[in-house]
């Protein structure tokens, strides 16, 4: 006996094609079933068949005019067809029926963001997030909106939340990219960083005695750590590495990584600009006397 619960398992496992086939089969035996219509409509949208989604979800709201999630899903299908006006109308209708529908708020926020109205986007997304703080898309949307209005600290905080909610998703990867961009903005906001220059110099001295493989190992380990986010503006916060003993600040590790990667391939785009600090450090390093000096 076929069962809608199995279709839901398939959806959760992202086997949408299989879920769609099963739901179509179930719908034949139970044509007006609310859950089947709703989930089938959602599958069509995700499988890039928005016309079929609209047809199915319209039937759902016709049969169940008070089912707010169906209006959200219908709005989402319209947004896939780039019909933002109809999409917005359906999200608003969902909110009329259920003012705390977090998905309606999230999608409406997304539409405002798309129209560059970040103030309204933030309002909707903040409300949505307060209702559903486990939703990664909302956290990411908030990070993105705050980033676009220049509230970098808030943006960074929400990107961090998005990553922590589920690190395995594409959204988490995008949030990580933004955090790197924010780190660079923060770094350069203070102009030339003498501390970074000294860390670069220290790295040049350290790597002089290491093999290219050891340098690569250290740089890549820092790079992996950097994906989780290194706090480069807080010298109190310390990190450790498997490939090197001691504890290090975020800026120190970032500088070491920069130098290491430049030693591996000078043309490499590292995504974080420490070129001035690195060049100054190189100059100092090349002037170093035979007896040398040590920077701690």
């Amino acid at each position, binding site marked *: *006996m*076929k*069962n809608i*619960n*199995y279709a839901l*398992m*398939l959806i*959760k*496992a*992202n*086997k949408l*094609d*299989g*879920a769609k*086939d*099963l739901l179509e089969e179930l719908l034949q035996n139970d044509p007006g079933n609310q859950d089947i219509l709703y989930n089938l409509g959602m599958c069509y949208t995700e499988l890039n068949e928005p016309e079929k989604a609209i047809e199915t979800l319209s039937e759902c709201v016709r049969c169940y005019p008070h089912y707010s999630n169906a209006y959200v899903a219908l709005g989402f299908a319209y947004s896939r067809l780039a019909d933002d006006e109809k999409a917005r109308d359906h999200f608003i209708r969902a909110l009329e029926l259920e003012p705390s529908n977090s998905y309606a708020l999230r999608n409406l926020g997304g539409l405002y963001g798309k129209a560059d109205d970040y103030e309204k986007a933030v309002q909707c997304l903040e409300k949505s997030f307060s209702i559903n703080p486990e939703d990664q898309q909302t956290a990411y949307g908030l990070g993105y909106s705050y980033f676009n209005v220049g509230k970098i600290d808030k943006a960074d905080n929400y990107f961090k939340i998005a990553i922590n909610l589920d*690190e*395995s998703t594409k959204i988490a990867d995008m949030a990580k990219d933004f955090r790197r961009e924010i780190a660079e903005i923060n770094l350069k906001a203070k102009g030339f960083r003498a501390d970074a220059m000294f860390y670069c110099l220290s790295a040049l001295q350290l790597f002089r005695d290491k093999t290219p493989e050891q340098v690569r190992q250290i740089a890549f380990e820092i790079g992996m750590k950097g994906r989780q986010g290194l706090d480069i503006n807080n010298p109190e916060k310390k990190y450790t590495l498997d490939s090197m003993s001691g504890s290090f600040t975020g800026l120190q590790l970032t500088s070491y990584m920069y130098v290491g990667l430049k030693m591996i391939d000078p043309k490499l785009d590292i995504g974080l600009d420490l070129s001035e600090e690195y060049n100054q450090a190189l100059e100092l390093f090349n002037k170093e006397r035979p007896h040398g000096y040590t920077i701690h």
Partner: protein
Amino acid sequence: MDIQFIDPVPAVIEEVKSISGKGIEFIPKENLATYAALKMARKDMSSHLIFYKKEHDEIINHLIVHECGHLFRIFKCPENQRLMPYSDQQMKYNALKKIEDEICALTKILSEDQMAHIIDLWYNGLIRQVTNLPPDIMIEKWIYDKFPTLRQLQLKSLNKQLTEAVSGLTETVARMTPPTILFASNVMNYTFFRILGLHIGENFIRRYSSTPYLGKGKELSAITEKDYNDTHEGDNMMINKWATFVNISDWFKWRGFEEVPPDYGNTG
């Protein structure tokens, strides 16, 4: 030694080929936990793989038919609706975090270098139990009903499994296992043997009388008998019900049958 197939094993192997479109390659392998283990063929594999211990006895015939039972169930399901359970480091971490206190309490008994290995055994063992026992019940019922000539071997094989299961009732195991894991494991074993015993007319659960697993075990048995849809889809839904019942539903997730690691098809 090579496997000496008895009836109906050759016919079952033929049926596997007819249903799945692929034959079975038998590969001798030492250090297996059982006499035989199966890797079902994915799209890019030319055959299913059954690994077997060189040193085995005739029980292996029952085990091969049992593994073929898993194959039949999965390959009768439409390709895009096949699901397999999986777990990863994050899920393992989250799961073990919840029983951190129970694990910490055991550090008084177990040494640090033993801990990591044993934690792995508990975690993987419990997932293997919850994701295998429900379909195993249906497969064993099928074997009993369809292949009377295998009944004697089946009984021998189930008794071997029972001996391993009831070791979970001993004081020694109880002292060295986190209570949450021990309870879930024993409740699931009880359910498996209760249902099968009733089906084949054997009292497998004598050793469980007056244990704390009886009540929950009977409850899980009732859920299983009442709701089982005898297909791959039904297996997966019942696995979820069992996992929820013993409170480990976040220990694993589902993904498509074909989504296996690139080295899955290796014969080593």
